């Protein structure tokens, strides 16, 4: 089974979850809504066959949840438990946003994302730049891996007796490479018509399906519950 969600739905999910993690759940009902909201991206990850990630998130979130509730109810005061609670609360608080973000980043192609942005009437300049950002993350990783190899061979991983070198020796070759690649990339892109006056088109077909509407509805409802309980009651 595969469920192709529209990138706009995904962005909306992030939006709602990011809003909800800012509000604290005070009643069991709110907690239930919150946990249910976290389960949705985990479920979606399973549908998209990212089993390992879904499992990891589930365990992580579950443990943190359990610890928070147990320790918070027990009036424990030890340093370790305090430390643990500190970590767990942060995880419980922000993990839903992380899981949703991870799901979106992993399951959305850059082309889809760019197309969604075009549909939302974001100027071409910004979508082009953003596409370059996405293309450059793996490039930076490749370049950095080679640079680190070269540093290993020279034995200067720790700066070669020069603390600033730790950063300098990594950053300088990386910048030189990226600037070079950027120049060549720009030349190749403009000869293929980037930067023309015509509006760019996109072959990506974005269509909202029933699942999209359903999810949007669910998330809107969840948001409404939180907003109402925070500002009205």
């Amino acid at each position, binding site marked *: 089974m595969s469920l192709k969600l529209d990138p706009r739905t995904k962005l909306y999910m992030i939006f709602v979850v990011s809003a909800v*993690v*800012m509000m604290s759940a005070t009643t069991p009902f709110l907690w239930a809504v919150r946990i249910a909201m976290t389960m949705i991206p985990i479920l979606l990850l399973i549908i998209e066959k990212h089993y390992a990630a879904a499992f990891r998130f589930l365990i992580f979130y579950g443990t943190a949840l359990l610890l928070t509730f147990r320790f918070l109810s027990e009036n424990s005061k030890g340093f370790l438990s305090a430390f643990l609670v500190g970590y767990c609360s942060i995880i419980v608080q922000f993990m839903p946003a992380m899981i*949703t973000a991870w799901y979106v980043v992993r399951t959305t192609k850059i082309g889809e994302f760019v197309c969604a942005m075009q549909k939302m009437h974001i100027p071409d300049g910004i979508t082009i730049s953003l596409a*370059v*950002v996405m293309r450059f993350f793996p490039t930076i990783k490749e370049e950095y891996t080679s640079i680190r190899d070269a540093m290993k061979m020279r034995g200067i991983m720790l700066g070669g007796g020069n603390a600033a070198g730790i950063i300098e020796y990594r950053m300088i070759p990386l*910048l030189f490479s990226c*600037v070079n690649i950027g120049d060549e990339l*720009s030349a190749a892109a403009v000869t293929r018509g980037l*930067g023309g006056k015509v509006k760019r088109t996109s072959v990506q077909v974005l269509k909202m399906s029933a699942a999209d509407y359903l999810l949007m509805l669910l998330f809107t409802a969840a948001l409404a519950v939180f907003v109402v309980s925070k500002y009205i009651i």
Partner: protein
Amino acid sequence: MNDKKLQAKDFITIGIFTALLFVVEFACGMLGFIHPYIVAAFVVLIPLVGSIPMMLFYTKIEKFGMLSIMSVLLAIIMFVIGMGYLGAPLIIASGVIADLIARSGGYKSFKKTIISYGVFCLWICANYFPVVITADSYRKNLIDGGYSVEYCDNLFRAINSKTIAVLLVLCFVFGCVGALIGKAVVKKHFEKAGIV
């Protein structure tokens, strides 16, 4: 070719340097997992380390929009990776203001560049917004749960709604210091190698 408008090549350059800056942020973020206090040290680390690519970036385009677009991109990325959108106004505002300052110096005046970069660095504080906003209710939760007030204050000593002002100032100051260092590095390497 003194076109004042950004061209395709410029958008690509902006994309590259945004990616580089974000990698710096991300690398520092990894350190943040070790201990939450390191998160507070972002205001020192990111302006200093980020200054090297940024000072090179300042020499590359010299047109209005370079910093504004970069800030919009940062805001979008922060949103997508789940860091929330509350920081977005701060990120974009510091980007646009930094852009205006740099433009007033024609993107050539180094003094203006220093201030511009200092202002630009304020975006880093957007990292703290989720924590700051949730801190109060979170603190209440902990106290209700039986923790001492002292402990809770300790937990949020470095980052709360009062210290955020201090953090903003620190960002600016270390941004200016970073600009000086970054400029020195650009001179030492990129100007000497003749690519600027």
